[in-house]
């Protein structure tokens, strides 16, 4: 099991955003999380990537606990140094790309491997160029993020995440900030990664894409998992009224 999150609870002040959520992701699995805004799906990813701290529950990567509930029912994390190591298990692609504007495309991709993973510069550069080639961006290596289209920036962000050799890659609405015209090129890259059996969790509003690419779809609403399973089942013949309603609203 690459990722296991058990009984996750998370509140912002009085607002309960995640109510006892459990998910698990196996090696090579592609899991899509869908649901209306405010359902907690992005928060779940942010908890998985330690950008938010959970109030209670368990987070395990590779069967190693990064956080677990203590006797008082509160989540307790491992030390800061250990968390830094856990971060090497995953990568995150943001909705807003969040590339470093003062670094060239190449440096964006190779900097963390050099300074965090302590790879040699030559090795990191070779890998970065290979990834950029895969993203069809080799000719943009010397460009700065501001010179790229949104779709290109997002592909650089994917290359940057892949350069860390993560065991699992998270996508937080990777196409929501893009023009409809540009979403296709990003989805194509994610699809290609799925074909290569990259383990991925994708929070998305692109329903046809989620249906086509996922091994499993999770529908979340109001901080709980309403329904999950095979995409054909969830999209084609959902069990719950709430899921049906959500999908109906989407088709309109």
């Amino acid at each position: 099991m690459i990722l296991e999150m058990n009984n996750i609870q998370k509140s912002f002040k009085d607002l309960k955003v995640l109510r006892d959520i459990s998910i698990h992701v196996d090696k090579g699995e592609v899991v899509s999380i869908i649901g209306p805004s405010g359902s907690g799906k992005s928060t779940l990813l942010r908890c998985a990537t330690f950008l938010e701290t959970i109030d209670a529950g368990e987070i395990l990567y590779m069967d190693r606990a990064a956080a677990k509930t203590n006797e008082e029912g509160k989540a307790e994390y491992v030390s800061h140094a250990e968390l830094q190591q856990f971060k090497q298990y995953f990568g995150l692609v943001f909705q807003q790309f969040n590339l470093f504007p003062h670094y060239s495309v190449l440096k964006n991709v190779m900097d963390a491997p050099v300074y965090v993973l302590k790879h040699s510069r030559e090795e990191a550069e070779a890998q970065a160029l290979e990834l950029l080639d895969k993203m069809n961006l080799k000719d943009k290596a010397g460009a700065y993020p501001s010179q790229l289209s949104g779709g290109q920036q997002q592909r650089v962000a994917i290359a940057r995440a892949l350069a860390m050799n993560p065991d699992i890659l998270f996508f937080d609405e990777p196409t929501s900030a893009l023009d409809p015209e540009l979403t296709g090129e990003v989805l194509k890259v994610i699809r290609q990664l799925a074909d290569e059996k990259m383990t991925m969790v994708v929070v998305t509003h692109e329903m046809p894409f989620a249906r086509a690419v996922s091994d499993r779809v999770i529908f979340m609403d109001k901080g709980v998992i309403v329904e999950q399973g095979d995409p054909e089942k969830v999209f084609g013949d959902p069990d719950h009224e709430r899921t049906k309603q959500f999908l109906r609203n989407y088709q309109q």
Partner: protein
Amino acid sequence: MTFQTMLASMSAGMLRSLAIFFLTLIFSLPLGMAVMYLRRSKYKVISGITKIYIAIMRGTPLMLQLLMWYFGPFYLFRWSIRGYRFPAIIIGFSMNYAAYFAEIYRSGYEAIPVGQFEAAEVLGYSRSQTFFKIILPQLVKTILPSITNEIITLVKDTSLAFTLAYNEMFSIAKQIASSQTSFVPFIIAGVFYFVMNYVVAFVMERAEKALAYY
């Protein structure tokens, strides 16, 4: 008194003015960063005290602060202040400018999208790597014009050291002007400040251009 002798006696003062200028920058630029972090502290007591500090530094005349830094130790603790004149000037200027720089840094810091911090965090950069590699370069670019303003003010503020009877350039200019009943020393002083600031503006403009690559 010839023009040359005036210039010669004022040049020692110019060196002292330059010393105040550079030492203040050397101390206040990094100190301002520390003040900014204290100001942003999540501990209310620390951020509160820092806010009061900034309010006092910005809310009272620098001239008064210089007097306080110099004579304060004597009046409060009866410490001897002999030989303390120059350090008091540098402390006074640095503490004052640090407060202004802190607020400029804060404006720049808060303008950096939170996604930059998050991207660095997820990639596993350490705190100091995040600061020096990701945040600082972007911060410097946004705040450079405001920093230029502040440095130009500092050039002219060095003349306030006369408050503590320190013979920087402007004090000497006044002395010569009154003893020689001549206006020339003031013109020399004006040219000195103007040229200094011209250089500052030139250097800072070059720096801005150097950072305009993205």
